[in-house]
């Protein structure tokens, strides 16, 4: 199986490399969409943040109650502090400092460090789970279209059943049963998120199957494998890229939502977990809930902008 996967990846990259002009053309078209470029720029920034950010930030798990609930730079809050010796409360103005540019949470952990390490979690989950869903969906879709008959029927009925489950409720059930570890969460999202992709790929492959070049390949004696991997899959690649870009935000949100309701991996600082802690301290430290949410929002927005831009670029009918 992995052999086969490696093969697809190699051939796809070959396909794109040998068509440099085509890639350039699509890039030109995507570039014309300003929002898509913004989306791409933000995603690159996020990847860099996740990869090398942790080298420059403080330890996201370091608890320091001396510096709890510090506001971000530029903000000042009033905090009442209890003095044990004199037994009275004093109000003190606490300004944000550059030591903690985004402030600290109720345990004195550095928000910037937590946000950066959360970016890593979100991207990992988003990319890996989407990858699993795409591979599974493509295999099922292409197989279904190519095999036809009872196999197609069985696969599509199974897809129907999986599609009837409301995505989030099924995720909650699976993660509840198997326990909240990041590996299971990624697997659960990947193994439930393939249905829409399988349907799209199937319908695309069905129409391709009757095209002359596929019939010609078969007439020349090409094996099923060859037809599927050399003719069907390369022709649905653009569709796959678009679906992948557009499904990543849903996956990132699903992980955040699971963490938010307490089904997240407690060993990592995911944006959803920070957000959940933030909701309980809205009165004392509003930024704990605001900051991870803004990151989540911008990430989803960026992927949506890019996905829409790619869709327009790949669509020969749209003139942008």
């Amino acid at each position, binding site marked *: 199986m992995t052999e086969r996967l490696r093969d697809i990846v190699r051939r796809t990259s070959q396909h794109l490399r040998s068509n440099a002009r085509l890639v350039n053309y699509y890039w030109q078209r995507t570039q014309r969409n300003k*929002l898509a470029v913004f989306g791409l720029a933000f995603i690159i920034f996020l990847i860099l943040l996740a990869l090398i950010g942790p080298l420059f930030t403080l330890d996201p798990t370091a608890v320091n109650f001396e510096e709890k609930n510090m506001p971000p730079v530029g903000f000042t809050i009033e905090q009442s502090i209890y003095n044990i010796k004199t037994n009275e409360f004093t109000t003190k103005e606490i300004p944000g400092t550059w030591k903690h540019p985004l402030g600290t949470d109720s345990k004195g952990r550095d928000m910037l460090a937590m946000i950066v390490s959360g970016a890593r979690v979100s991207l990992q989950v988003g990319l890996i789970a989407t990858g699993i869903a795409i591979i599974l969906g493509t295999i099922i879709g292409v197989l279904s279209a190519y095999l036809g008959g009872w196999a197609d029927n069985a696969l599509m*009925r*199974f897809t*129907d*059943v*999986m*599609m*009837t*489950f*409301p*995505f*989030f*409720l*099924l995720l*909650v*059930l*699976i993660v*509840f*049963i*198997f*326990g909240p570890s990041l590996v299971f969460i990624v697997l659960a999202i990947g193994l439930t998120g393939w249905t829409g992709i399988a349907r799209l790929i199937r319908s695309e492959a069905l129409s391709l199957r009757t095209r002359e070049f596929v019939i010609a390949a078969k007439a020349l004696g090409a094996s099923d494998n060859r037809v599927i991997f050399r003719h069907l899959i390369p022709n649905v690649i653009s569709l796959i890229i678009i679906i992948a870009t557009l499904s990543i*935000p849903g996956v990132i*949100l699903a992980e*955040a*939502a699971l963490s*938010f*309701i*307490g*089904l997240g991996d407690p060993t990592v600082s995911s944006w959803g977990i920070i*957000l959940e802690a*933030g*909701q309980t301290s*809205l*009165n004392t430290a*509003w930024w704990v*809930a*605001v900051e991870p*949410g803004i990151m*989540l*929002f911008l990430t*989803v*927005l960026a992927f*949506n*902008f890019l996905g829409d831009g790619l869709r327009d670029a790949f669509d020969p009918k749209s003139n942008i």
Partner: protein
Amino acid sequence: MGKSWLRDYIIKRLIYSVIIAWGILTITFVLVRVGPSSPADKYLANLAARGQDPAQVTAAIEARYGLDKPILVQYADYVANLFRGNLGWSFSTSMPVIELIKTHWIYSFQLILLSSLFAAFLGILIGIYSAVKQYTKVDYAFTFFSFIGISIPNFWLGIMLILIFSVRLGLFKTYYDTTLPLFSLDNLKALVLPVITLGTGMLAGYVRYTRSAMLDNLRKAFVTTARAKGLPERTVIGKHVFRNALLPLVTIIMFDLGSIVFGGAYLTEIIFGIPGLGQISFNAIFANDYPVVVAVTIIGTFLVLLINLMTDITYTYLDPRIRYD
């Protein structure tokens, strides 16, 4: 001819739905059984914590829940029980799961109904306006805001609304008041923030779908004909274009109800403390109350199945051109 094909079609759809329902039950059963801990284990942890002998308790639970029977018998029992409406026993609340659901479903229902109405009405209106004024500043503004509405995580939006309108401005309570009578103005006021939270994403989606469906139809020849006949623009847009754009919209709205809204409602209920099905499932997760978590998923899924079936049947009435053969 006549209506006989329609009857046949409905019967076919019903049989098909029963097969899907069976698939849903089977997948849920398999999931629960292959899980690393059986329902008994989670129950056991609770009882063992109260100082009872684990071995005795395990045997008692297994006999009580039929977990000592062969797996196929368990499976048959499970399916039969569900069809009788027996969803199991919730030990964290000490009542049958079905009773628990009967007392709480109305809270989810009112939230979902109000949010859907809010999103559909406003979304369709803005979508039509945007399509008619295509490429104007207003259209760009609506398109941009619909992008934001789609991308904003609804649980974060809920928290921000609480932060701004409840914590800072003090206009609303931070938590839903469960003592309010359901059909009262106060209850409606308490639901304002939750409805905006759940409705914004849907609203943005409907604006986009309505706009593109209207634009698709605006370019069709029958619109030119209608205009050439000298019909007023209001009639052209309202009767000719919108009627044709409505059908795909109905599908999308119904599909949303099934796949997205239940997840969104789950989170919205938790944020605002609305005691609906999402909230009882959420509480059950922390209490390790297996039957409740499973039941909420199954009920949600069955509702989706029912909605899909109804959509398909309404469709054949709405559009006489559609024939499923």
